[in-house]
């Protein structure tokens, strides 16, 4: 039979870590490229263990970034709503004032 041998247990563990990092929102493009190179070269268990550690670090960073993003969203949602309400309210008040002034002008111009 030609081709590659079945991936070792450390290789599969590294893959699972990669998938977990990806699910957490990490960018895994470079790690996948490295993983495929190791697969082609039948890389050592130590290389896959090192990649697994990189994936775990990437996962932790992604989880922290996601938590920050959630806090930022939770804070910005009511602030954006307040700003939009203020702008709309100002616009409505301006329109009412202009309407009032127009009516007063019409009253003054009446003979």
């Amino acid at each position, binding site marked *: *039979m*030609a*081709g*590659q*041998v*079945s*991936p070792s247990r450390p290789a*599969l563990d590294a*893959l*699972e870590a*990669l*998938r977990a990092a*990806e*699910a957490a929102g990490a960018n*895994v*493009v470079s790690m*996948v490229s490295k*993983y*495929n190179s190791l*697969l082609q070269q039948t890389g050592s268990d130590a290389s896959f263990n090192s990649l697994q550690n990189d994936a775990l670090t990437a996962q932790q960073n992604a989880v922290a970034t996601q938590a920050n993003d*959630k806090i930022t*969203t939770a804070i910005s*949602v*009511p602030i*954006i*709503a*307040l700003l*939009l*309400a203020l702008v*709309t*309210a100002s616009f*409505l*008040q301006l329109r009412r004032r202009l309407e009032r002034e127009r009516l007063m002008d019409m009253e003054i111009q009446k003979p």
Partner: protein
Amino acid sequence: MMLKYLRSKEFATLYLVFLSLTTLVAWVNANPPKAEQFASVSLLGPSKTATQYFPNNSSQIKTGEVINWYIQVYNHMESAELFFLNIKIGNQSLTDTPNAPTNTPSAGFTILQSYQVVLNNDTWIVPLQWWVVNNTINGNSVVIGALQVNTSTAPAIGISAVFGKNFRIIIELWSYDVQLHEFLFSFRSGGVVYSLWNQQWFDLT
């Protein structure tokens, strides 16, 4: 005057309306709709199209005649996948036909195995150059002795066909399931295992 307006019912209503809208936008942004999960495997000819699989466009080949194919795997599983291409040679025996409803792989003889992690929405192309190295005749059967597959020689033990007709190359797509910790033929989507395979028939004359 402004403070009085900010306490008015009108401003409260405006704020509630915008708060609902921004919350909705944030929720949709955080929970994008799930796309359908699938993968595909295709066999392509030397020009990377689904044509001209054999020299002279004839599936009747001779020993030593070089065949150039490409196998294309596409990943739309919404995550990076470790795919495993299991390429086999078989004859027209029913057991050599993979059974997709029961997820049973072909009983054919494996001639090439290849593994690769493919990113979501990415394609993996595997070149497959092969030829029959030698064969023997046993009564009215042609028995393949060995195949050259890319850079290695693969024995094809016991693969025979009457008058050399209806041999086939079978391509199975497998993937590693991180929840089950094993390779599946071919992948799991929505709790259901789907089996993908492809094949090309040829006669050895």
